[in-house]
C-alpha cells in the first residue's frame, strides 16, 4: 500500500491519458450515433496528444523560448549561456502540432462524410441506416 500512492501520483499523467483513451474508445464502439462516434474519435486523439505533451515536462523548467533572445541582449546569448535543463523539451510540442492538425483534418473529413450519409439516408443513427440497407 505504501508504494501505491507514489505509483499513482508520480505517474498521474499516464493515468489521465489512459482514462481519456478508454472513454474515447468506448464512445467509438458503443454509441450508435455516427456523430457521437466522431466525438469519441476526437477524444481518443486528444488523449494521445495529451500524453505526448506531458512527457515533455521537466521540473523547474520554463517554456522553450530562449530568454532575452531578441533585442539588444541577443548578441550575448551564446551556446555556453543556454542550459538544456532550464527549458522544457520542445520536441513533443513540435510533434503534437502536427498531430493536432491531423486530427482537425480527420474531423473535417468525417463530418463531410456524415453529411453525405445524412443526405442519403435521412438519419444518422447506425441501426436505422442498417435497417434501411437491409430493406433494399
Amino acid at each position, binding site marked *: 500500500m505504501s508504494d501505491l500512492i507514489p505509483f499513482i501520483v508520480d505517474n498521474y499523467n499516464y493515468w489521465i491519458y489512459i482514462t481519456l483513451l478508454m472513454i474515447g*474508445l468506448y464512445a*467509438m464502439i458503443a454509441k450508435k450515433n*455516427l456523430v457521437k*462516434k466522431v466525438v469519441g*474519435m476526437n477524444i*481518443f*486523439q486528444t488523449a*494521445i496528444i495529451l*500524453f*505526448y505533451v506531458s*512527457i515533455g515536462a521537466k521540473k523547474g523548467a520554463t517554456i522553450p523560448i530562449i530568454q532575452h533572445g531578441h533585442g539588444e541582449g541577443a548578441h550575448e546569448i551564446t551556446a555556453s549561456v543556454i542550459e538544456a535543463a532550464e527549458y522544457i523539451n520542445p*520536441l*513533443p510540442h513540435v*510533434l503534437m502540432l*502536427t*498531430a493536432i492538425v*491531423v486530427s482537425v*483534418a*480527420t474531423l473535417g*473529413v*468525417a463530418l463531410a*462524410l*456524415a453529411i*453525405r*450519409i445524412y443526405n*442519403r439516408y435521412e438519419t444518422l443513427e447506425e441501426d436505422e*441506416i442498417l435497417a434501411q*440497407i437491409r430493406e433494399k
Partner: protein
Amino acid sequence: MSQHYPALLVIVPLLSALLISIVGWLNKRLCFPIAVVALSVSTYSSVGLLLRVLDEKVIHYHLGGWAPPWGIAYRVDHLSALVLVVVSVVALLNLIATQKSVEQGFSEKIGAFYTLYVLFITGLLGIVVTGDAFNLYVLLEITSLTGYGLIAMGEDRAPLASLNYVYMGTIGACFYLLGIGYLYISTGSLNMADISSILPGLYDSNVVLAAFIICMVGVCLKMAFFPLHGWLPNAYTYAPSAVSSLVAPLMTKVMIYVMIRLMLTVFTPGFIFSKLALSNSVVWLAVIAISMGAVLALGARNMKKMLSYVIVAEVGYMVGGAWLGNRAGMTGAVLHIANDALMTLCVFLAVGNIVYKAKGYAFEDLKGLFRKMPYTMTGLVAGALSIIGVPPTCGFFSKWYLISGGIQAGQYAFVAVLIFSSLINAVLFFRIIEIGYYEPFGADHGHGSSPIRMAEAPLTMVVPLLIVAGGLVVMGVYTGDIVTNIIAPIIPMGLGN
C-alpha cells in the same frame, strides 16, 4: 541530379498535385497530362534508385541538411527500392487505364480527383522511403485521408463504408503514434536506425514491449489482418472502380512493408524471435486469417466483394510468412508484396473494364463475356492463375517460398492452409471463368435495357491490363534473379537459416 532521386521521388508528385489543384479551376483538360508526367518522373526516379541501391547497398539523404537523429533522414535499401518500383509502376499503369472511367464518373470535379490521386501516391512513396518514424505517421495520414475521400465517391453505400474505414483507420494510425511515443520515452529518438542502435540495451523493459505490441496492433488495423479487417470488404467493393484498382493493390501491401520494416530495422529480429517468441502465436493467427478469408470469399455474391476477401487472405499469407522466422519465409513475404500488388492490380483492372462496359459487377454480368471482351477476360484469367498459384506466373513462386519456409519452421498448419486456400481460390475463379465462357450472352444481361451488342473496352483500358498480365509471367520467370539480387541482401544474417 541523381543524388537527389530520393527527394525528387516524393517532391515531384507533391508539387504536381498542388499544380493540378490550381489548374483544375482554370482548364480541366490539363489535369491528366500533369498527373502522367508526375508519376512518370516518380517511376523513373524509383528505377534509378533501384539501380543505385544494387551498387551502393544503402542510400542516405538528409532533408534540410541536418544529420539524423536531429533532422529527418531518408534511408533507401533493397526492400524500399523494390517496393518503390512496384508502387510507382502500379500507380502509373492504373492512371492510364482508368482515364476513361474517371472522365465518365467525375467530369466536373476532375481536378480534385487527380489531386487526391497524386497525393495518395505521394503519401505511399513517402512511407516507403522514409527513415524517420514520425514522418511515417504524417505520410500515413496523408495516404489515409485522401483514400477516405476517394473511396467515398462511389455508389450508394460508399460514404458509410468510408466512414467505417475512417473510424478504424484513425484508431490504427493513433495506435501507431502511441507506439512511437513509447519508443520515444524509452530511447529519446525518432530515427529508425538510431532507435535500433539504442534498443538492444532495453530489451527487458516493459515500455519497449508495450511499444512493440501497440505499434503492431496499429499496423494490423491498417493492413486488414483478420479480425481487424472489417473495413476492407465494404470499402473496396463500393468504391468507384478507378479507385479500387488504385487502393486495393497498394494500401495493404505498403502497410505490410511497414510491418516488415519495423520488424527488421527498428525492433531487430533478435528481439522479436529470440526474446519474445511470439512467432508461433502470430503464425496461428495468420492461419485463421487465411482460412476465414477463403471461406468468406466463397460466400460473396459479387466480383468485387469476392476479390476483397481474397485480399484479406493474401494479407494472411504475408504476415504468416514474415513471422515464420526463417529466410525462406521472409523471402516469400517480401516477394509476395511485389507479386500480390501486380496480381491485384490485374484482376481489379479487369473488373474495372467489365464495370465500364457491362455497368455492373455481379456474377450475372459476366455471362458470355469471353466472346464479347476477350482481351479483358484474358487479363482476368492471367490474374486468376497467378492468385491460384499456377507456374510460370509469379504467384506460384512466392507461394513456393512460403511453403518451404513453413516446412523448415515446422509450421505444418500454415503449409496446409496455404494449399487449402489455393484450392479455394481455384474454385472461386473457375466459377467465374465458367460463367464467362459457357453461359450465353443473354437478353437479361445489363439490367434490361442495354442493347445486345457490346464491344471490347477501349484501347487505353485494355493495353495496361495486358502489360500487367505479361508482367506477371515475366516476374515469375525472373524470380531467381530478383531473389538473389534484391531480396537476399535484405534479410539479416541472424534470421534463421
